């Protein structure tokens, strides 16, 4: 499967010269596993960079981890939604009380947004993502709830021809313990990430910043690395960078973060491309 990081920033779009190398768009990852289909992980502002022309596509799946604004802010600007007849599926976390449609239309309706979901010209279907395994073109997907305020999913994508990508964009596995040191069975997100070739994982805070942000739903860089090691992944891609962490700060953080660890650590940069599984 081919993966492009379209938005790697957490919380708030933060485009400015000082964030130009890592990027300022919020969470969005493009996955292509089958010709004519695209799977999109989250709909942050990075989604605008995905070409959604109907002439090239016949199906689009958008997998939302949760409905915090930084993960849906780009949805109304996703070109695929405006392609007449294009099959678009939106998947999101289940709620105990409201449908995904009801929750999304709080944002995608006036006065917050001029276009209503029902007025979109694509063939739109909304789904509560099942907690477990389901199939998309070229991919077997597993969704599960992870530790973050409000219902929040992580996803595990297994390519039909091999390769595993785990995507846990907003995640605080250290909540309550202050560390990610197992046991694995009591660690949020472990089953999603276990043995993945690539793990894209929340690393919003530095280890020094984390103690004053406990309960905010995010990981420190150290926790992300410890989680990746516990899960035995091949490569960690720290993601959801704090909007205040400019390029120089991220360079400094990751100059030493992965040193001496058992896994490869390469922080997410907007526009990075990854090939996972057989070429």
């Amino acid at each position: 499967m081919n993966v492009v990081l379209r938005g790697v920033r957490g919380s708030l779009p933060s485009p400015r010269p000082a964030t130009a190398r890592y990027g300022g768009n919020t969470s969005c990852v493009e996955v292509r596993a089958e010709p004519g289909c695209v799977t999109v992980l989250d709909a942050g502002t990075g989604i605008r960079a995905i070409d959604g022309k109907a002439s090239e596509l016949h199906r689009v799946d958008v997998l939302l981890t949760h409905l915090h604004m930084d993960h849906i802010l780009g949805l109304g600007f996703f070109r695929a939604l405006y392609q007449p007849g294009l099959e678009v599926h939106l998947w999101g976390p289940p709620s105990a009380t409201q449908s995904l449609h009801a929750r999304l239309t709080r944002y995608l309706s006036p006065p917050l947004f001029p276009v209503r979901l029902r007025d979109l010209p694509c063939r739109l279907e909304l789904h509560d993502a099942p907690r477990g395994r389901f199939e998309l073109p070229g991919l077997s997907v597993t969704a599960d709830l992870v530790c973050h305020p409000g219902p929040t999913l992580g996803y595990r994508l297994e390519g039909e021809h091999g390769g595993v990508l785990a995507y846990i964009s907003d995640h605080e596995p250290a909540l309550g313990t202050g560390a990610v040191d197992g046991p694995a069975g009591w660690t949020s997100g472990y089953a999603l990430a276990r043995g993945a070739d690539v793990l894209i994982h929340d690393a919003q805070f530095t280890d020094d910043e984390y103690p004053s942000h406990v309960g905010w739903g995010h990981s420190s860089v150290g926790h992300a690395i410890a989680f990746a090691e516990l899960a035995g992944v091949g490569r960690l891609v720290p993601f959801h960078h704090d909007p205040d962490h400019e390029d120089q700060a991220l360079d400094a953080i990751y100059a030493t973060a992965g040193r001496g660890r058992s896994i490869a650590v390469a922080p997410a940069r907007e526009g990075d491309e990854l090939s996972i599984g057989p070429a």
Partner: protein
Amino acid sequence: MGQQPVELILLKQVAGYLATPMFLVDAGGKLLYYNEPAEELLGHRYEETSQMPLEEWGTIFSPTDSLGRPMPPEDLPLARALAGREPSQGNFFIRGLDGVARHLSVTAVPLEGPGGTHLGALAIFWALPRR
């Protein structure tokens, strides 16, 4: 290795912080966790306990009713909450594994996740004065 649902992971963490005794089982009735305040009532450390099935934790503490009659495991509030998927409450006596008899009030609630997923049940203990 499997992983517990995040709801149970978070509940375990909350229970770990509270001074209220709590006892957590999965949907099949298997003991998953009890916190330190519960350890004091049960007379046994959780870390020294295996993941007991209902039949074991329902008898190992020798629960008896107010007349001293043994209570079958299925009559315990936690077992009733689990089976009936509705809250259950009861007062009864146990003998902790430290040999001390205790009078408990127990309130148990079933745990349901999004979409009605049956996750297990949680019991909250309260020590009552000996009679």
